[in-house]
């Protein structure tokens, strides 16, 4: 793994791409890493394209710019592929991870000839199966950890369970569903 792993998230306002980036920063922090998780704000409205970023490193991070040459790109909403060149600057040795029910062959024409790895995860289906609702960001987070290898599966799931137990202290019935969504996405991505 490189010294600093850089990740760019593409989503739409209200879908939780920023939250997913902050959660990734959180879970990487808990495994002892130096982290950054930050959003880039344009017009603040539901449905507008938003970008969020992560830097994860074993050394302190001082850079405060956006990320133009990421190692990984995560696309939470595949409709963005039509309007945004999501693989712009993306390392050939990295990967793009797309929330889609389509295969990577079907998505290839929208990826501007990107030569690196392409992963698709049907986060909507996973979320509906596990939680009964479409919350794509948790499955996309699990897929990102699986593809990037930022941390191992057990450490990730352990930290996420602890975090859900804290977050959902008043509705523990949703914890197992969330954990199941992470497991399923992890399996589908690798």
């Amino acid at each position: 793994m490189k010294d600093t792993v850089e990740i760019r998230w593409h989503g739409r306002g209200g879908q939780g791409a920023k939250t997913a980036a902050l959660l990734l920063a959180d879970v990487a922090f808990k495994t002892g890493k130096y982290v950054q998780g930050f959003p880039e704000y344009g017009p603040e409205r539901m449905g507008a394209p938003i970008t969020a970023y992560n830097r994860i490193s074993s050394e302190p991070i001082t850079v405060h710019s956006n990320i133009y040459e990421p190692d990984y790109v995560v696309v939470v909403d595949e409709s963005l592929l039509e309007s945004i060149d999501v693989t712009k600057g993306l390392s050939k040795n990295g990967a793009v991870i797309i929330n889609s029910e389509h295969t990577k062959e079907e998505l290839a024409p929208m990826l501007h000839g990107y030569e690196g790895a392409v992963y698709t995860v049907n986060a909507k289906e996973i979320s509906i199966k596990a939680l009964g609702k479409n919350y794509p960001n948790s499955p996309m987070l699990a897929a990102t950890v699986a593809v990037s290898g930022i941390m191992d599966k057990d450490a990730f799931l352990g930290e996420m369970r602890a975090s859900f137990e804290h977050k959902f202290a008043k509705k523990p019935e949703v914890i197992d569903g969330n954990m199941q969504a992470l497991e399923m996405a992890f399996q589908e991505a690798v």
Partner: protein
Amino acid sequence: MAIRERLSGNEAVAYAIKQINPDVMPAFPITPSTEIPQYVATYIANGEIDTEFIHVESEHSAMSATIGASAAGARALTATSSCGMALMWEELYVAASDRLPIVLALVNRALTGPININADHSDSMGARDSGWIQIYAESNQEVYDNFIQAFPIAENKKVHLPVMICQDGFITSHGVENILLVEDDKVKAFVGEYEPEHYLLNPNEKMAVGPYAVSNYYMETKRAQRQAMIEAKQVILDVAKKFEEMTGRSYSFFEEYKMEDAEYAVVIIGSAAGTCKAAIDHIRNTTGKKAGLVKIRVFRPFPEEELAKALAHVKAVAIMDRSEMFSATGGPLGAEVRAALYQAKSSAETVNYFYGLGGRDITVADFEHVYENLEKTAQTHEPIGMYGYIGLRSEQEKEV
């Protein structure tokens, strides 16, 4: 043992406020500082602190209520950004001339227009002549550390001036980073209890705050404010030394990064300094060229002589401004650093750049370009533009 955490800059400031548990916080929300009063209100609602939170109808009222509380003898603070601080304008001068030790958590954001919510320094730079001490931060760690040092500086009897603790909107305020927190009891002991010397609620001492001053008195008041700013310099260093004894983290008027042997230096304020450090490391590792950085922490009072000394041996300096002052020449930092160099009879070439206005990003590659220009300038003694822009779309750049 320090507490290892990860927080946004706004969370870090709110956490420092919780640890200090001040008496009064009047506030009115504005992006990107809104989270600070929001988190503090949650701490109060949860019974974690007993700060009196005053819901006001505008920033003009927020600073007015903060002034009232401080004059009454309370430890008082508020938070704001951009246009919110512009609406406090009159009160900023009142707070300073009344010599009230107020702390303002300022999350720097561009002033309108066009309306913009992102980081630049036009709000605080516009208030540079208001009589407030201004302390800036590169990271979440620094804004937290600066906030803990703010009240001990402001309340020192030699100073008695309001302090602005500034951080870059969104870049640090909404960015989550690793941070080391100080334990509650240590913060409380460091900041101490506020014991005002003169205050309105003291029944044994009748006094007026902020009365009319005729010409016979006004000028002496201004001279006294200047003296307080002069005295503040030593107090800022003393408080930083005490803070270093507690945490091991060292602070001064500015940070010097790789300046021991630097031939080319950047002078900058705020979060972009971290990006510049990465550029310096890359330049030194790949070319061996001697790049360095001076990151201004304290802009008011301005460390003129110290800065000139730090830059004494460099061949060329790029002074980087994140705000305009529409003098049709340079920016505020550029003007003051050049004056400091002139005063010290420096022969260094200088270039003054504008960057990052309204949140325009600045990258490691941009800084590498700045150092390349400095090297050329030092060789030819012809500045690549006395005043330049970083990141401006090229067509307009030609007009500069």
